[in-house]
C-alpha cells in the first residue's frame, strides 16, 4: 500500500456532491479521506500541486473493447488499461465480445486477473447476455456477477430475439445490473456498411437506415417498461432514438444511454474518400442526428459519454471500405475531444462533462467511484483544461492506431490519473 496523497489547490469538480470549488483532496490507504480547504499533509504524504488544474472523480469509460483473449494483436488488457490511464480514465468496462466470449465466471476472472496485473486503470468486466453471444439462451449471468461482472451485453451483436431480451431484462434484476444493448435490427441493416443516404449513394456503399437502430431502441424501451428492468442503450446515434429515450425517461422507464465522441463530432460526410477510420457501428449519421445526440447529451437524456474504444490492427483497416472491420479507438482522445468540442463549443459546462464521464457512468453501472465523497475509492483524474495538444496516433499507448482524429488540435488533457491513491499516469510539467 502506498502512502497518503494530498492534491493541493485544484478546482475540485465533483458532480455527485455538486462541488465546484478550489480545495484540497486527501487520499489515504487508497480511499478518499477528506475533501476541503487547507488540509494538513499527513506524514510521508505525496503532494501534487494542482493549482490551475481541475480535480475530478476518476473518469470511467463504460464501453471499451480490450480484445483479450483472442485479439491480442489489436489490444491486450494491459495495453488497453494503460491507454485508458493515459486518457484520464481510472476505470473502464470491458466488452465481452472476445474469443472466447466472456460468458462464464472463468472469463470474468481472467479479465479481472489480467487487469489487476496491468497496474493501470481498473477494469470492470461485462459478461455476455447469451451463451457465446449467439442470441439463443442466457449466459451464466448470476455466476458472472458473483465473479465480478457489473453488467451484461451482447455488444458487437444485437439481441435479435426480443423474447430473449425480455428474459435478460427480467433475470438481471435479481443481480441489480443493467442489460446493455447494441440496438440494431440486422435485417434492416442488411449489407449496410455506413449511414444510408446521399453520401452512401454517391460512394456506392450500402447504407444502414436510422430505422435499423430506432426499431431496437423502441423495442428495448418497451421491454424495460414491461419488465421493470434496467436497459442501457449503447452508442445512440439517431435523432429519433434520442427522442424516444427522452420520452421513456419522462415516463419513468429505467433506461440509461451513451453518446460517443465520434457521434457528437463527426457526420457521414467523413466517410467521403472511403476512409476506413470513419467506419464504425452504428455508423456516423447525418448532421441532424449529430445535433440531436448533442442535445441529448446536454439535457441528460444521454447520461454517459463513452468512447466505444474498438482497436483494430492496421492491416485489418488497410482494406477497401466494405471489407474493413467496424470501430475506432477512443480512450486517449475522448477527454480532449469532450473538452474541445463539447465544453469548448459551449454545449455543456465542465462539471456536466465530468458528470457524463464519471458520476453518470458510475451510477449507470452501479460502480464504486464517480464521486470524491469520503470513503469512496481514491480514484482521481487531474486535468489541465487549457493545455493544447495534437493527436499523434503513433504516440498512443493503445496497440492500435485506428482513429479519425489523427492530427486534430485539441485543448485539455489529463495530467494525472490516480487509481487507489497511486498515479498510474502522470505528465511531468
Amino acid at each position, binding site marked *: 500500500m502506498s502512502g497518503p496523497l494530498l492534491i493541493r489547490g485544484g478546482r475540485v469538480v465533483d458532480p455527485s456532491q455538486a462541488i465546484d470549488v478550489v480545495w484540497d483532496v486527501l487520499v489515504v490507504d487508497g480511499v478518499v479521506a477528506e475533501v476541503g480547504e487547507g488540509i494538513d499533509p499527513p506524514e510521508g504524504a505525496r503532494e501534487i500541486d494542482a493549482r490551475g488544474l481541475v480535480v475530478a472523480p476518476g473518469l470511467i469509460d463504460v464501453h471499451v473493447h480490450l480484445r483479450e483473449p483472442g485479439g491480442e494483436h489489436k489490444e491486450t488488457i494491459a495495453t488497453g488499461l494503460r491507454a485508458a490511464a493515459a486518457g484520464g480514465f481510472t476505470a473502464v468496462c470491458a466488452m465481452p465480445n472476445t474469443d472466447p466470449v466472456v460468458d462464464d465466471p472463468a472469463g470474468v476472472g481472467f479479465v479481472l486477473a489480467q487487469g489487476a496485473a496491468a497496474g493501470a486503470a481498473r477494469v470492470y468486466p461485462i459478461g455476455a447476455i447469451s451463451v457465446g453471444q449467439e442470441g439463443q439462451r442466457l449466459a451464466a449471468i448470476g455466476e458472472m456477477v458473483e465473479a465480478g461482472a457489473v453488467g451484461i451485453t451482447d455488444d458487437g451483436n444485437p439481441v435479435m430475439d426480443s423474447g430473449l431480451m425480455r428474459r435478460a431484462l427480467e433475470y438481471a434484476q435479481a443481480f441489480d445490473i443493467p442489460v446493455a444493448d447494441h440496438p440494431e435490427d440486422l435485417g434492416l441493416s442488411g449489407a449496410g456498411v455506413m449511414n*444510408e*443516404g*446521399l*453520401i*452512401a*449513394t*454517391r*460512394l*456506392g*456503399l*450500402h*447504407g444502414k*437506415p436510422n430505422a435499423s437502430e430506432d426499431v431496437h431502441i423502441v423495442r428495448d424501451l418497451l421491454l424495460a417498461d414491461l419488465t421493470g428492468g434496467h436497459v442501457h442503450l449503447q452508442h445512440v446515434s439517431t435523432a429519433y432514438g434520442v427522442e424516444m429515450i427522452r420520452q421513456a425517461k419522462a415516463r419513468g422507464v429505467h433506461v440509461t444511454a451513451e453518446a460517443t465522441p465520434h457521434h457528437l463530432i463527426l457526420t457521414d460526410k467523413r466517410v467521403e*474518400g*472511403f476512409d476506413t477510420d470513419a467506419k464504425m457501428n452504428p455508423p456516423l449519421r447525418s448532421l441532424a442526428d449529430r445535433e440531436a445526440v448533442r442535445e441529448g447529451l446536454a439535457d441528460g437524456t444521454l447520461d454517459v459519454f463513452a468512447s466505444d474504444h474498438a482497436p483494430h490492427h492496421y*492491416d485489418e483497416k*488497410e*482494406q*477497401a*471500405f*466494405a*471489407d474493413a472491420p467496424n470501430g475506432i479507438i477512443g480512450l486517449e482522445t475522448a477527454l480532449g475531444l469532450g473538452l474541445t468540442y463539447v465544453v469548448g463549443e459551449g454545449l455543456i459546462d465542465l462539471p456536466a462533462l465530468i458528470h457524463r464521464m464519471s458520476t453518470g457512468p458510475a451510477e449507470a453501472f452501479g460502480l464504486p467511484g464517480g464521486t470524491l465523497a469520503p470513503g469512496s475509492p481514491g480514484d482521481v483524474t487531474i486535468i489541465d483544461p487549457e493545455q493544447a495538444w495534437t493527436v499523434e496516433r503513433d504516440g498512443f499507448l493503445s496497440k492500435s492506431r485506428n482513429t479519425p482524429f489523427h492530427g486534430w488540435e485539441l485543448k485539455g488533457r489529463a495530467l494525472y490519473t490516480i487509481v487507489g491513491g497511486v498515479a498510474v499516469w502522470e505528465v511531468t510539467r
Partner: protein
Amino acid sequence: MNQPRLYLGKDLVGLESLSAEQILTILDTAEPFKEISERRIKKVPVLRGKTIVNLFFEASTRTRVSFEFAEKRLSADTVNISSSGSSVVKGETLVDTARNLEAMRIDMVVIRHGSSGAAKFLAERIPSNVINAGDGSHEHPTQALLDMLTIRDHFARIEGLKVCLVGDILHSRVARSNIYGLLALGAEVAVCGPKTLLPLGTAELGVTVFSRIEEAIQWADVLNVLRLQLERMEAGFLPSLREYNQVWGVTRAKLEEAPNDLLILHPGPMNRGVEIDSDVADGPHAMILQQVTNGVAVRMAVLYLLAGGAPDTAEVAKEGVEV
C-alpha cells in the same frame, strides 16, 4: 505545341471528380483512336515499352478483353491477373498484391474489384497510374465514357439530351458513372426501377426518378438498360424475373408507345427476356455492339492521356512507325 500537362491527373478512379472539360477531352481523344481498330494491322507504337497489369478480382470478359485490346493495339506489354489462380486466393491482401506488382516496375494498373473504393485505395498506395475498371457499386468510368461516346456519335451532342438508366441502380457502378458524366456534360438524367433497387438520396444527385418504365419511355431520348443480376431475386429485392420483365423489362410493345425513336444502350452482358427483350436488343435502335466497339477507343484514349499524351497530338502520335 501546348505545354505538356496531365490532362486527367495520375489516375482515372471515377467521373464524379472530373470536370466537363476533362470528360470531353477523353471523348475527343477517343475519336482518332477509333480508326486504329479498323486497320488491317491494328497496332501503333503509342505505349511501346509501357507495362500494364490488368488486375481483375471479379469475373469479367468484355471489360478485360476491351482493355487488353486497347493496350495491345497501343503496343503496351500487358499481364492479366484474375482472382482465381492467383495469390489473391492464397489470402494475399489487395495492398500486398499491388506492392508486389509495383516492385516489378510496372507503369499502369487496370483494376476491377468487388468493393467500392478499391480503385482509389490502390491509387493512393502506388505511384503507377490506376484505371478503375469497376469497383463494387461505386464507379465504372470507362463504361460510362463509352456510353457517352456512343450517344454523341448518334446525336452529335450530349447536352440537353434526356437519358434514363433503367433497372438496378442500387448495385450499379455503371449507373453512378453515367449519372456523374452525363450531368457534367449537361444532359438530363433519370433513373427507373423498382424502389427496392433505387438507393436513398438518388433524387438529391440531381436526377429524375420514375417508378414505371412507361413514364421513362415517354420522357427519354436514350434508355440505358442495366443488367439485372439474377441473385437480386434470392436476396429479396424482387419477386420474380418474369414479373420484372413484365413491369420494367424493355419490350417492343412498350417502346411502340414512345413519342420518338429511343436509342437503346446496354452495358452487357444481357439477360434476354429479363431486362431487355431480344427484338429490342437486336432491333434497329440498339447500339449495344457499337458500345463495345467504342469501348476499345475510349480505353485507348484513357491509357494515352494517363501516360502523359496530349489530346491534340493523338492523331500524330498514332501515326508513328507501325510495327
